[in-house]
């Protein structure tokens, strides 16, 4: 815990000093928690501790609320006022949510993995964004490389070059990855993937068994690269001075750089008539909907134009896909191919998109049936697809999605 102690030396000297005007907060917190919390001082009267039965009533939805509530109520002793609200958390509930992993390995579940096994899992679940070698795709995070660049003008910050703790990689992959499909990796898959990321950074070899015991022992190259906030010493002491008001510079200020030269500022759209206009002009076509979605489908599809309600529902479902797919005017290939005209399009046929081997070599075209199967179970339907998405669970969502997709022609 020496790190924590350091923190307090640093922050009490720095931040603490600044808050002196508010309270003497070191005293307040080192001492026992006040019986009547300070903020309650303004209430007309202390709120009496409710009787145990009241507590039970207060948590009617509690699982075993009565028993746990009562235990909780009996415990209203030294530190602070208790209201008897809430219910006891059950061990299963704590286990389900308490997933965080600390640098010393606390919180790591039993399991194991290695980079050799991790390679194929990484390829399947991670490479669409992070690249087959963890080198990153486009603007998505690079996980490997950048060794020795931290003092350079444009440092490359990766797990290998920047992250201080292996535990953080495990914790994050397990809880928040894959992007859009979090909390679907098994414990062993997580060990495999983390091993592969470490291997890609030349930190372990491909046979190293990563498990709850070995993981905390894998020290990352930049583990000692961090210092606790030192602004109090390096900055505040300099900048708490009486400011200059006149003749503050040796020479008149000259412009040394202009934002318009770079020209990276988004243009403010030259707006079409306000879509939210509450009083539209008498019904004419003067208020064209901006999205082609609302346009009547072009000639061939005219007979089976999708139901607008279904299209609207599909548009909502499509939010799940937006991270990787574009559709509509100007849609481009991103992590996934652009989807204009997908219904009726040959499978694996968008120019310039690198499909998985399976998808690229498939015959036939996407129709309602093939799309429905794929959307419900992408990896089960097309083995080896790069699409990491787990699939739409509800049939209604699949139907709405197909309606939405079919509203965009080529």
């Amino acid at each position, binding site marked *: *815990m020496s*790190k*924590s102690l350091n923190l*307090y030396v640093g*922050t009490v000297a720095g931040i603490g000093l*600044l*808050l002196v005007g508010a309270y003497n907060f070191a005293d307040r*917190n*080192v001492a026992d928690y006040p019986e009547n919390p300070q*903020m*309650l001082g303004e209430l007309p009267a202390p709120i009496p501790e409710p009787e145990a039965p009241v507590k039970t009533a207060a948590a009617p*939805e*509690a699982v075993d609320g009565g028993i*746990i509530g009562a235990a909780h109520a009996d*415990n209203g002793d030294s*530190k602070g006022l208790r*209201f008897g*609200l809430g*219910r006891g*958390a059950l061990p299963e509930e704590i286990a389900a*949510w308490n997933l*965080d992993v*600390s640098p010393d390995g606390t919180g790591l579940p039993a399991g194991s993995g290695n980079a050799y096994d991790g390679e194929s899992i990484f390829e399947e679940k991670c490479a669409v964004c992070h690249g087959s070698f963890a080198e990153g795709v486009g*603007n998505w995070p690079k996980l490997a490389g950048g060794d020795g660049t*931290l003092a350079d003008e444009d440092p490359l910050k990766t*797990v290998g070059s920047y*992250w201080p*703790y292996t*535990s*953080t990689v495990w914790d994050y992959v397990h*809880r*928040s990855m894959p992007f*859009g499909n979090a909390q679907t990796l098994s414990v062993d898959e997580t060990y495999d993937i983390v091993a592969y990321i470490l291997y890609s950074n030349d930190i372990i070899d491909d046979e190293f068994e990563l498990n709850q015991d070995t993981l905390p022992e894998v020290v990352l190259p930049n583990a000692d*690269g*961090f*210092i*606790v906030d030192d602004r109090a010493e390096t900055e505040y002491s300099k*900048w*708490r001075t009486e400011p200059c*008001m006149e003749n503050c510079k040796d020479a*008149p*200020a*000259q*412009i040394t750089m*202009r*934002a*318009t030269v*770079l020209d*990276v*500022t*988004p*243009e403010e759209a*030259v*707006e079409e*008539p*306000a879509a*939210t*206009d*509450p009083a539209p002009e008498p019904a004419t076509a003067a208020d064209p909907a901006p999205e082609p979605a609302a346009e009547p489908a072009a000639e061939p599809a005219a007979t089976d134009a999708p139901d607008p309600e279904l299209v609207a529902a599909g548009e909502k479902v499509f939010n799940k896909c937006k*991270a990787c797919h574009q559709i509509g005017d100007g849609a481009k290939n991103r992590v996934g191919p652009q989807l204009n005209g997908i219904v009726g399009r040959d499978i694996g046929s968008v120019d310039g998109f690198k499909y998985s081997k399976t998808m690229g070599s498939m015959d036939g075209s996407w129709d309602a049936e093939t799309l429905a199967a794929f959307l419900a179970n992408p990896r089960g339907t097309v083995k080896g697809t790069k699409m990491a998405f787990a699939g739409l669970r509800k049939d209604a969502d699949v139907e709405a999605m197909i309606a939405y997709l079919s509203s965009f022609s080529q």
Partner: protein
Amino acid sequence: MSKETKGTSRRQFLTSAAALGAGAVAATGARAAGPDPLITEVQDWASGFGHGVDEVPYGLPIKFEDDVIRRNVEWLTADTISSINFTPIHALDGTITPQGCAFERHHSGAIELSKPDYRLMINGLVDQPLVFSYDDLERFPREQHVYFCECAANTGMEWAGAQLNGAQFTHGMIHNMEYTGVPLRTLLAEAGLDAAGDFKDKWVYVEGADASSNGRSIPMEKAMDDVLVAFKANGEALRKEHGYPVRLVVPGWEGNMWVKWLRRVEVMDGPVESREETSKYTDTLADGTSRKWTWVMDAKSVVTSPSPQSPIKHGHGPVVITGMAWSGHGKITRVDVSKDGGMTWETARLASEGQDKALTRFYLDTTWEGEEWLLQSRAMDETGYVQPTKAQLRDVRGLNSIYHNNCIQTWHVKANGEAENVEVS
């Protein structure tokens, strides 16, 4: 119709400024060329009806203001799911940010979590781990406070030089709202803190219910001080994009710690060192070492008008320079304004006395005769800290920082009233 009333984009501005010509920008008090038909003729709105009540059960701003919206800088992030947009601070006044245009920052999208589905767990080093429903939270004694929430990356794109041409983009990762909620210490006390022992080396780990969970570690000292578990902002429920139904408010500290959709608070004996507090939200110095746990947002200010998106559109004579100032260390006590790039300064008027860790509005009521300005503002807080220049920051930190850029901003106001983001010597 709405075209004439649109906010002025840069292009539009240039055309209209050219059309006016220097002579036409008359000062106040000039005689009109002829009677104004808006006065001499009966207008439709003075004769017929407006909308009845209930036309809009929940109102949006009038259509003439529909350019006052959040905006995104597409090239900043790989997609909009894990991304940020910017508050239109150039078009706002006062201090309270309306929720509907307050910036958004998500790590895996804004989720829809209902009150009945909401659960908050307190666990770890507590006497009795607890689960609260949303209704439970509303039964604890509440507090109200106005606080600013600023992303640590606000102004981050400006480290290397003047980049984005607009206060919205350079300084818009901030909002300021009045929160209603329960102090975190009240909930911790409810779970019992005997088990935590001495608070001095204890932390709380807080996380959200969304897929990113965005976990952060907060020292117990702060958790027991002013951290709020908030469920209302500006008098109404939080918006989805700001963590409905419950978010954490960590006054004065970087926005990333204000966990949205708060689902769990764990009392721990050390920091988790999560992704958000190691690989992100750490500050790399010139020599390659990095600061961590840089939580406090230092004093900062910016002139919001005139600014690139809010040029001077009227003639010479009176002009109001306005902007906002804030400090994570406490109250703003003073704001100075310079028109010559920092050579001379005059003290601006604060619209009201500074509030603890909240935005303060400042005004400088002055005149403009078409001279060029290098307009700057400089905030001071109650600790005596004076907002630094970019050069001062670079001297200490080098050029590789991303977060915590609180430097003095310069707008170049030109003879035609247009303003540009510039860097000065």
